[in-house]
């Protein structure tokens, strides 16, 4: 009897199509990109695919400020955006939790920014912050808060700030929704116990509500840290990493190196280093989440 007719072979035979698909769309590209990161592969010279250079790409990256500055900027961007989104999302969730009428409608409206394509959000904010025709400058001037045209997307720091605003506008609702879910799930008893135990409103929030919400915040942060660490579209549309590379972040850099400069081997090496960043952030929030869940689970 041939081996594929044996009963013990059946599960493997049945799994073969899935395995093949997986191999083709996941394993092969992964191995291939990993391989190219050890070559001097240039898109314009296919033969360079066989140009094995060992760890040279990685060695260059680790000593290259051209890489480390965008890397640091991405970490900073991530930190600023996540914190602002957390605080705003928390505020919005607390306010929406308070109202009794029109809550559903507001919850739906709140999700609108998430439904827009990031590219379009980028274009929208690019026009809002345009120094000549943008509504931001227009408003500031009309209100007499500024007399000149503020170069929102031209000055390095302001551009970073403008991009952060766009990112925050688009995704604060992720935090708001998850934290609101947390507030809905919050047991009322410990809050009342805290009131009886002598807490005023702020102390109740600080010692009871906030610790209860943190697992929900960590979920949002884990999701958003992956999102923001691979931010590309908004930045590309609004500043394309400019001016003079001052808003260059990891993935705009990688895109530029890989496709504009055709140095795909180097770009892939950068991508692998950046992936480690994402993994670290996610792992950090996941650990926090697990720790928080240990006491939250089954407490009542």
């Amino acid at each position, binding site marked *: 009897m041939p081996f594929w007719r044996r009963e013990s072979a059946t599960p493997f035979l049945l799994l073969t199509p899935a395995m093949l698909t997986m191999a083709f769309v996941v394993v092969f590209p992964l191995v291939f990109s990993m391989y190219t990161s050890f070559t001097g592969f240039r898109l314009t010279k296919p033969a360079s695919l066989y140009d094995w250079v060992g760890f040279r790409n990685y060695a260059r990256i680790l000593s290259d400020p051209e890489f480390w500055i965008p890397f640091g900027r991405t970490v900073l961007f991530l930190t600023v955006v996540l914190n602002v989104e957390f605080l705003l999302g928390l505020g919005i969730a607390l306010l929406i939790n308070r109202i009794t009428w029109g809550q559903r409608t507001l919850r739906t409206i709140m999700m609108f920014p998430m439904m827009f394509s990031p590219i379009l959000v980028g274009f929208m904010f690019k026009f809002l912050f345009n120094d000549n025709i943008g509504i931001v400058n227009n408003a500031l001037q009309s209100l007499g808060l500024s007399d000149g045209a503020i170069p929102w997307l031209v000055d390095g720091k302001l551009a970073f700030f403008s991009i952060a605003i766009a990112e925050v506008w688009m995704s604060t609702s992720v935090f708001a929704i998850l934290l609101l879910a947390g507030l809905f799930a919050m*047991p009322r*008893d*410990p809050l*009342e*116990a*805290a*009131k*009886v*135990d*002598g*807490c*005023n409103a702020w*102390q109740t929030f600080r*010692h*009871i509500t906030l*610790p*209860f919400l943190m697992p929900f915040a960590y979920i949002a942060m884990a999701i958003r840290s992956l999102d923001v660490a691979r931010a590309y579209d908004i930045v590309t549309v609004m500043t394309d990493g400019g001016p003079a590379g001052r808003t260059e972040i990891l993935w705009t850099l990688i895109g530029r190196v890989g496709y504009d400069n055709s140095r795909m081997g180097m770009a892939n090496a950068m991508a692998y280093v950046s992936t480690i960043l994402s993994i670290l952030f996610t792992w950090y929030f996941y650990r926090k989440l697990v720790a*928080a869940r*240990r*006491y*939250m*689970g*089954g*407490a*009542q």
Partner: protein
Amino acid sequence: MAEITLEKVVKKYGAVNVVHGIDLTIAHEEFVVLVGPSGCGKSTTLRMIAGLEDISGGIVRIGERVVNDLPPRKRNISMVFQNYALYPHMNVRENLGFGLKIAGEAPDSITKRVDEAADILGLTPLLDRTPAELSGGQRQRVAMGRAIVRRPEVFLFDEPLSNLDAKLRGQMRAEIKKLHQKVRTTVVYVTHDQVEAMTLADRIVVMKDGRIEQVGTPMEVFNHPRSTFVATFIGSPPMNLLPATIDGGAVRLADGTVVPVPERLRAFTRDGQKVTLGIRPDDISPVGHGLSQDGPGAEVGMVAELAEPLGMESLIYTRLAGQEVLAKLYGPRIVQPGEALIFRMALDRAHLFDAETGLSVRAD
């Protein structure tokens, strides 16, 4: 001094009135139990005392102060909740010390007082665990510890034992009683369990539909129920109630059986009055097998339909005037279903209620 006074206290949820003007004074260091069926407004009343629920009308005082508009933290109370309401993210030590920490107590004083409370309640080995790592009974203890550690003027309990199994409930009941003897404070305790009410209370407040039905010591409430509601709610198994008419100085039951009007109630009845005769199972027993052999009584013949032997006593299901009646036989004697027995009613312990109002005929 923490006397609690409720004056015409009302609670409304929108148009729905759930507490209808309660008047009650709870003395300093008194243990008062609010008891009544589910939904009668016990928790609402307690929560108004705690400040967790707005007071729609009337006045609540703790000590000399009117507390209507004070938040809970300014009332110097502590409360034990039905679901314990522990802080899930704090360990037992932090749970116990939280109130003191908020009050700005010094850390070593907190440690000392938490250790003391933990000692009283046998929580010392559990201090480092989180609530998720405790059993129901242990959580219950932590909830009590959290209440006593702050040394408030008033303890409020909302059905603190209802989530425990029967055995643990009995133990904790005894511990609460001991605790009150050790830590003398005013206690308001809510329960739907009349056994808890009888065993714990200095005074019982029986509530029904947002009103107070009767207030009194456990013995007063048991021996002199003011209405058929109290009569059936307090005491287990519940009091038998038989419709009757006063006829020539006697109580005539629906089937014509006649028993004399109890001596002490004679002055309160008039001929032709429609009444309800109330008598506890303990006070109807086969002749020679009752609690009290002397005193005024009436003898009736009835057939035992079912008997539940409980060891030294048996509960007998029988029938009088077309109605099921519970009786008790004291002594280790087996009763066969269908056995005809002469029962003696201890009339000095029987009650008469007005059939219309359900109130005791005694005008008290």
